[in-house]
């Protein structure tokens, strides 16, 4: 029986998958696509999967946390997170964490992250020894991502165990193994490691320089990145490379708009490679001369977003292609007019989020989940809305602590009218943990700081950071 290619984890950079796409029904797809993004159907589809996944997914049991991530984060993207019992989800996810008995165990070579499923998790034996610990980098990434999505405060988990033991997984060439018992090492797991450190706000879990060197060695002669050095450039590999470099701070935000050159990566070649991945049918391909596939609208689209080049693509053509992959009863398929699956549905949603489809939450491109989830809400205090120029937060740049006050910086694009901006921010703030005290808009260039309602005092550092770009500063306790 031809089984579906297994998803190791969220960043499932498998290539074209076999026949036998799992689906809850065998109804054949409609002949002509809808002309709009059918949000309600997608919500219903994902709600169903969140409650129960059909047996077709049993071959992916080992990646339960990944499947859970797709459903929960997918619902968040669709602005339907209210369907999810956040506390229950958080508790369930936390139950997958591998715990060492003592700090000494952290150097025994095992990885004390999260298991991907109960299949790889066993209660300790009579001596309290967990001989079967199989913490997995990708599962850990998914676990943390789910926890952030449901608003769980990551500061309360045992991050030290994760980070210290994660170093056991890094190889001499800078790459990462996903499991301590050994498995393939490639860019996917470098990405997971970087994302884990980023979410935990602690880079002690990896040697960034070595990881960077490994990533660079994966850049192909044509500008894209392969999954390992020497391999063909690939959309998923390129995403892992660029997103990791961005998370680690080796490439700055919105590189292309700033006329900045990267000394690290051959950016013009990379950009040209990415641009060429949009095929004649409007969709994105993962490699040259291959068919367009829904998910590469994310993998490659997100790279362009990170670089600041997303505006250069043909969005109309892309949208048209993606709609041919939209299934009548919810979800997205890999290719046009096929049956949907969880993975391509999720990346269909992220692709539409990048296209700024109304009704979807904005995306944090380098983490592959919503901006809101990526934001560190524990640092955000109570909020007062004032008369401001409001914009959508794109993503969290940095958190700076100054005594008891923490500043959250977001980079924001300016939208059209004051009224629409205001309503967007109202919606955004509703989702935030109460506690934000004040809002500011700082304009780059000639305008001075606009102090709206709260005074934070001058801070040269703040000015430096935001020079040249408008941004939203949220001040918290």
């Amino acid at each position: 029986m031809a089984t579906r290619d297994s998803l190791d984890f969220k960043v499932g950079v498998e290539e074209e998958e076999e026949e036998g796409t799992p689906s809850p029904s065998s109804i054949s797809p409609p002949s002509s696509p809808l002309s709009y993004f059918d949000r309600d159907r997608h919500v219903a589809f994902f709600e169903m999967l969140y409650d129960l996944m059909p047996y077709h997914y049993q071959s992916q049991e080992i990646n339960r946390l990944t499947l859970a991530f797709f459903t929960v984060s997918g619902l968040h993207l669709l602005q339907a997170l209210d369907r999810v019992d956040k506390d229950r989800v958080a508790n369930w996810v936390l139950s997958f964490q591998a715990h060492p008995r003592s700090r000494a165990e952290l150097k025994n070579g095992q990885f004390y992250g999260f298991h991907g499923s109960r299949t790889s998790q066993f209660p300790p034996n009579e001596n309290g020894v967990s001989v079967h610990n199989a913490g997995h980098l990708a599962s850990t990434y998914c676990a943390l991502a789910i926890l952030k999505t449901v608003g769980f405060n990551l500061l309360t988990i045992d991050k030290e165990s994760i980070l210290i033991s994660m170093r056991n997984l890094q190889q001499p060439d800078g790459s990462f193994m996903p499991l301590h018992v050994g498995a393939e090492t490639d860019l996917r797991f470098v990405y997971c490691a970087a994302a884990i450190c980023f979410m935990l706000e602690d880079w002690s879990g990896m040697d960034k320089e070595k990881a960077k060197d490994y990533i660079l060695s994966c850049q192909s002669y044509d500008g894209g990145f392969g999954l390992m050095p020497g391999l063909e450039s690939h959309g998923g590999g390129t995403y892992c490379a660029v997103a990791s470099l961005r998370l680690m701070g080796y490439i700055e935000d919105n590189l292309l708009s700033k006329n900045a050159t990267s000394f690290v990566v051959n950016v013009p070649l990379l950009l040209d490679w990415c641009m060429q991945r949009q095929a004649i049918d409007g969709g994105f391909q993962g490699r040259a001369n291959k068919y367009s596939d829904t998910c590469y609208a994310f993998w490659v689209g997100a790279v362009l977003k990170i670089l600041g080049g997303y505006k250069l693509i043909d969005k109309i053509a892309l949208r048209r292609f993606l709609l041919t992959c939209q299934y009548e009863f919810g979800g997205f398929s890999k290719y046009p007019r096929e049956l949907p699956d969880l993975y391509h549905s999720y990346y269909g949603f992220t692709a539409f989020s990048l296209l700024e489809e109304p009704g979807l939450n904005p995306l944090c491109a380098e983490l592959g989940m919503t901006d809101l989830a990526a934001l560190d809400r524990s640092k955000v205090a109570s909020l007062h809305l004032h008369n401001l120029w409001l914009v959508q937060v794109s993503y969290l740049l940095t958190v700076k602590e100054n005594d008891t006050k923490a500043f959250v910086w977001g980079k924001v694009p300016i939208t059209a009218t004051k009224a629409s901006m205001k309503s967007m921010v109202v919606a955004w703030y509703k989702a935030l943990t109460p506690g934000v005290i004040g809002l500011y808009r700082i304009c780059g260039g000639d305008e001075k700081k606009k102090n709206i309602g709260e005074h934070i005092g001058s801070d040269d550092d703040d000015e430096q950071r935001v020079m040249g770009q408008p941004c939203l500063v949220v001040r918290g306790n």
Partner: protein
Amino acid sequence: MESSEDDGGEPLSRLAEWRDVTPLPQDDGPNPVAPIAYKEEFRETMDYFRAIYKADERSPRALRLTRRAIHLNPGNYTVWHFRRLVLEPLNSDLDEELDFIQRIANSNSKNYQLWHHRRWVVERLGTNVRAKELHLIKSILSLDAKNYHAWSHRQWVLQALGGWEDELDYCQQLLEEDIFNNSAWNQRYFVVTRSPFLGGLTAMRASEVRYTVEAILANPNNECPWRYLRGLYKDDIESLVNNHEISSVCLKPCQEFRDAVVALWTSDSLPLDPDLATAICGILEHVDSMRASYWIWRKNKLPVAA
């Protein structure tokens, strides 16, 4: 010695052999997210697997059980890992193991765990299996010439065990079958730059340029040879720019394009810019309209002509 087929799908609970084992059910925990509606065969097999794994029983029947579990769940890295643990003490015939993997690969040729397992086996068998391995990968590529896993494995075999001698010919053959196969172009680059038999990129450049230019002229709309050509001059753009053979190739199709576009140029648009780079961006805006924004952006980035 493992039987060639598992127990015919007979429920384990009905088999005498497993009578002494209490299957260990999965504890999904309270309020599981996205629970899966497992089929009975799957659930039962994994329950027995959990029991054996927990007990760390490394026996022939454990080996057979992993086979059964792998058939149902080839992505389960725990099962593969345990199979490796069992293979060692049983002194199993690793050549047979290669055959086993091969059979699973028929319907799972894009499964990471399978390929990793294969690598593990090959590492233990060494250069003796090199030829067989390269041959096997060829047969998988003959079904899907772009299978990323197969290519990855092939590159690993070459680097770990050698066998480079015929690789350039193999690339040649694949490109003759499909000049649009980017995987084959990539492999060609891999061989040209890394094969201990070929002398490296600089030594190979002249002949590779000839080959690539031919490919371009045959199919100028094929992205691969253009990228490859650029790649041949990776750290030496000067030489690329000064190579007359290449500039004539680049300008030849361009001139034809240009003539055609000029003929189609509407009278109320700006005349073609004398600066070649700017003119080309201008043409591409129209001819490659999907990337119009990109070409405009690139035009604006061009250094202003003196």
